[in-house]
């Protein structure tokens, strides 16, 4: 059974259709790389799946169970099982690094504080920030903030991790530290959908690559298919432009 099965997904900002019939099949442990030009709807797919922009049509099945985005309990279930990491980190500015990671387990999921704190420490060690527990987001570099955001998402013990251009806001020298963290997660078998412009990275970690343009899924296949032998002209144009840079 597919871990996440998206069929005919549509989403709108007001009257404007921004996703048009997206199909995406995600198996357990798959790492999906979503690529495409800016404004193609890649991030919107992630925002729709997590319910920030509820789909206007289509179906999303999580482990075979349909998600009803008009039903608060159904959306809560999705958010218990899927976590998202945002391009702009979205760390809570009023909380320390440790509190950012423990606030949801403790305050929302009502887990034991000591246990949650111990786990958060392990996660922050894992992303290389074990010495920054008491710091606030605005005291960290972009790369460090993004790694805290990843640790915060992992503290929710998600089955699926959505990563929305997690390196796009970072200085080039900070990109590798975030990519290393994602590489480890991919190696551990975490199901992930990664929106990124880091083509070399997508080629390396993605089990399948999907190319989007104008809110549509144009083409999908293995990294080799998409990068070396794309079938669609738009994919070819995009890949050749990207690779020229």
């Amino acid at each position, binding site marked *: 059974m597919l871990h996440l099965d998206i069929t005919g997904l549509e989403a709108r900002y007001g009257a404007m259709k921004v996703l048009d019939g997206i199909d995406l099949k995600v198996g357990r442990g798959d790492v999906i790389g979503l690529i495409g030009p800016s404004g193609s709807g890649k991030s919107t797919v992630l925002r729709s799946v*997590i*319910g*920030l922009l509820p789909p206007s049509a289509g179906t999303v099945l999580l482990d075979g169970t349909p998600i009803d985005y008009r039903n608060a309990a159904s959306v*809560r279930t999705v*958010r*218990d099982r899927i*976590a*998202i990491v*945002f391009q*702009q980190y*979205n*760390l*809570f*500015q*009023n909380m320390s690094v440790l509190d950012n990671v423990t*606030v*949801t387990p403790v*305050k*929302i*999921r009502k887990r034991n504080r000591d246990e949650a704190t111990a786990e958060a420490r392990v996660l922050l060690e894992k992303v290389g920030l074990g010495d920054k527990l008491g710091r*606030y*987001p*605005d*005291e960290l570099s972009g790369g460090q903030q993004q790694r805290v955001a990843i640790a915060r998402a992992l503290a*929710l013990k998600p089955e699926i991790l959505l990563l929305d251009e997690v390196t796009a806001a970072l200085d080039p020298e900070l990109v590798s530290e975030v990519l290393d963290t994602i590489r480890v997660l991919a190696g551990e078998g975490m199901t992930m959908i990664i929106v990124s412009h880091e083509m070399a990275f997508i080629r390396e970690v993605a089990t399948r690559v999907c190319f989007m343009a104008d809110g549509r899924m144009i083409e999908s296949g293995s990294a080799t298919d998409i990068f070396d032998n794309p079938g669609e002209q738009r994919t070819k144009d995009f890949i050749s432009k990207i690779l020229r840079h």
Partner: protein
Amino acid sequence: MLATILEELPRFLTYYNLLFLAQAALATLALSAFGCIVGVIVGFVLAFVRLTPSRLWLPLRWFAFLYTEIFRRVPFLVTLMLCFFAFQATGYDVPLAVVGAVTVALIASAFIGEIIRGGLVSVHRNQWDAAATMNFTLPQTIRHVVLPQAWKIILPPAFGFFVMFIKDTALASQIGVIELTYAGKVLNNKGFSAALSFGSILLIYFAISYPLARFGKHLENRLAASRHHRT
């Protein structure tokens, strides 16, 4: 003028005059405190209602919106008169202080509600989104994430409003509530010079509002300290 004040001062500083002024100051303080406390509580409720996304809350959202917009636009004196005549129409003998208290509560709730709402929505959308994706409810989002970041936006205008509001309660004298301004008029009518009567009132207003402003500043420093300035 100073000679007149000095000459009147022994007659002015009698036990009964001071008691009268103290009672009037207490009335002003009570009206202001009641308005501010009820205003903060109801203001939070109004702000919260206006931020709810659910369709089920739509009628309440509209009520909160209309309430806020109407009572922020109607002059204090008009609201006071409306309350005065509304209570009169009920046929019950409602004390004037109650009419004054209801009026200040109505007005303060609308103003403070808008100040709180403005502060909450000023917190970046990405903070709300992050909380939503981690299953925070609206009250949890406001309590744990948004409000701690919104204090620095809410507190300065809120305390500015409180200080202005203390002065506005003077209008309650128009329906006969014996508060500070009314006391000034009474003392003036008793033959004391306007400089002494209203000068004393001015000092008492200052004595009430200055500590409040300082308290606001203190709260601002405590609750709204920017992380950028931490040492």
